[in-house]
Each structure stands twice: as C-alpha cells, then as structure tokens.
C-alpha cells in the first residue's frame, strides 16, 4: 500500500526539495511507499484532505485542529524551536509607528494562511480594527504582500515571521515591522491519519533520532529544521484549545 503525504503550503519555496528528500528518507526508514503531493493553495489542499486523500500531513496549527478533532489524525512530532509567529509590517516610509496608529479604512494585505491571518487580525484589535472597518486583500504569497507595501497599494501587511525573515534583504530594507507576535506555543505539527496509525511508533522513533546521523541531519537542514520533538495528545489538545480561543 502506498500512503500519501502533504505539507502545509506556507513553507518557504527554498525548502521544496527538502520535503522530497524527507519523503525519500522516510520511505527508506519505514520500508513502505509514500507519495508526496504539494499545493500552492490552502483551499485546494483542504478539499483533498476532507476527501480523505492523505495519511501523513505536516500541518499548520489551524488545520491541525480540524485534522485531530474531525478526521481522527494524531500529532506525533513538531520541529524543534520553530514556533509560528506573525509579523505586521508597513512600508519603511509609512507614517504609522505603532499598530494603534492604523485607522479605520486601512488597506490590509494578507494571504490565505489561516494562522497568520487570524493572528494578524487579533493584533489589529488594539487599534479597534476588524474585518468590518478595514479593506482586506488576499494575495498568493508573502512576496506579493511585500510588493503591495512597497508600491503603497496596502497600508499594512501580515507575514509569517519565518517568511518575512526569508525575504531578500533589499525588500526587507524597504519595510518596517510594527509588531511581531511572541506566542511560542503555536507551531506546525506532523500528523498521522487512521490508515497509517500502525506505523506511528516507527515514524516517531525515526524522526526523533533523525538529527543523530549525517544523512538525517542533511535532510533536516534542507527542510530548514534542526531536529524533531515529540508531541503527545495533551500537548496537541492544548494547542488546539488555544487556537479555539483565537477564533470568534
């Protein structure tokens, strides 16, 4: 039987090859076939997840909630020291110095990344801004969000912090961070679906020792990870409860 793996579409393009290396590495560890399918869009991927197409998913925290509570997936590991944080940035020349300077009618550039968008909107609350009194435009990538800030088509933009930090120095030099979240307990996780549940002990054992040999370490580096940490069900439930408090 061949299993199916997919990855939340919000990773940096530089790491695409890393996920293919990971898939090859994992197949060798488990001695089983795994097909990797990548997506550009969250919606398209979510439709295929709902259609029960996947057995192994590296998911953002928002989707992890749905996978665990609705589809019986189990979170088994997370990358070490890699929390999901959100940045609100403006054009470097902008008059806005704090979030509270943003006014009703502000043009917000965002992506379809559910966690980053949710956290971005939460950080606007202190300025009394919400979807009802802002103009929100959704773009295909963080690079496009940055472009809209640079050409003054948007007043503020939401970024996954990791993606913001990986933008070119030239682009970043033309922007300014208004606020950066420091939540630390919200992160991506690797989840295993019911069909693959028998493999959980083997997957977890392989992942948790992956950084201890050169081959595994090389694959981790290409994914932008240092190592994997275990996730138990209570840690997963805690993160899901936390996400629930952030969704109205």
């Amino acid at each position, binding site marked *: 039987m061949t299993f199916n793996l997919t990855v939340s579409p919000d990773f940096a393009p530089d790491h695409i090859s890393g996920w293919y290396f990971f898939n090859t590495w994992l197949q060798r560890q488990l001695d089983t076939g795994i097909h990797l399918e990548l997506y550009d869009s969250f919606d398209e991927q979510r439709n295929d997840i709902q259609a029960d197409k996947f057995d192994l998913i590296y998911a953002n925290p928002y989707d992890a909630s749905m996978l665990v509570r609705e589809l019986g997936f189990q979170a088994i590991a997370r990358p070490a020291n890699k929390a999901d944080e959100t940045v609100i940035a403006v054009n470097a020349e902008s008059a806005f110095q704090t979030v509270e300077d943003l006014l009703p009618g502000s043009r917000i550039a965002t992506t379809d990344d559910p966690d980053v968008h949710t956290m971005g909107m939460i950080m606007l609350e202190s300025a009394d801004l919400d979807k009802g009194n802002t103009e929100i435009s959704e773009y295909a990538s963080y690079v496009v969000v940055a472009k809209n800030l640079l050409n003054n088509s948007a007043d503020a933009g939401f970024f996954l912090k990791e993606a913001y930090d990986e933008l070119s120095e030239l682009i970043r030099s033309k922007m300014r961070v208004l*606020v950066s979240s420091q939540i630390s307990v919200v992160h991506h996780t690797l989840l295993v679906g019911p069909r693959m549940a028998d493999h959980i002990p083997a997957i977890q054992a392989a992942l948790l020792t992956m950084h201890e040999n050169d081959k595994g370490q090389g694959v981790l580096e290409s994914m932008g990870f240092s190592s994997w940490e275990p996730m138990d069900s209570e840690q997963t439930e*805690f993160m899901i409860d936390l996400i629930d408090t952030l969704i109205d």
Partner: protein
Amino acid sequence: MSELDTGEIRTVEIKYFDGTSRVAEIVDREVPYPDGKLIVSRTDPEGIITHANQAFIDMSGYSEEELIGTNHYILRHPDMPAVAFKGLWDTIEQGTKWHGYVKNLRKDGSYYWVKATVIPNIRNGKLVGYTSVRRKPSRSKIAESEALYATLLAEE
C-alpha cells in the same frame, strides 16, 4: 497608561466567592499590555491554576511557583464587579466560550487590562479544566469597560 491614573495607594479587603478574603494594597497605576503577546493559563475545573506561560508570569508579577496551585481569582481587581465573573462562570459551565474585558490585579498592586477568552477543555467528553487566553485590548474598549464596571460595582 490610563489618563485617570493617580498613583494613589489604598488598602482593600478583597472577598472571594468561596467565602475567603485577603487584604491587598491597590496602586492606581496601569502596566501597559505588551505588544504581540498572549497571556495563557490553564486551570482545573475549580479554577486552580495548572499552567502559566511566561507572559502571564511577567504581567502578573508572581513567580510560576506562586501561580501554580493558586486559585485564578488571585488576579481579581477590586474594581471588577462580581457580576462580571458570574457571567464568565455561567457561560463556561454551560460548555461555551466566554469573551470579556478584565482589569487584573498584579502582585505589586498595580493593574493591567486584557481582552480575555476562556474555553472549557473537554477530553473524551469530560471537562478537565479551562484555558484562558488574554490579548491586548483597545483603549476605547478599556474606557467602555471602566464606565460599565463602575456602574455595576456601585449597584453591588
């Protein structure tokens, strides 16, 4: 910082719903909510703190050891009307999410405002506790809440 802050210090006996009370020094000084942070805590079903994140420790002024095992009402500010907390408990005991603006008391007697969300933690169909996440409120919501709570407090 609130424009109404006077820095005045008063000694108040704070009475809790379970019949206990404590005497606290209250300082009329606001500590601003830090940008980008969420204050996270968890309690057991009785409101005893079982988890506190670093932002909670920093903003409350208590150490983690002091917070864990203590009732969450240690943060209750005497300017908060009891009816506000009754609304919170009535809501979460029905298994639903509660949102509200809360003035919290720090260990040093000063205060900070939060927008709080509390949800019941259900595991295998059973209530095992509550998670509370606090975020930065807007000044306008703080002003509205100050006025509302002063009215409610006067009626108690």
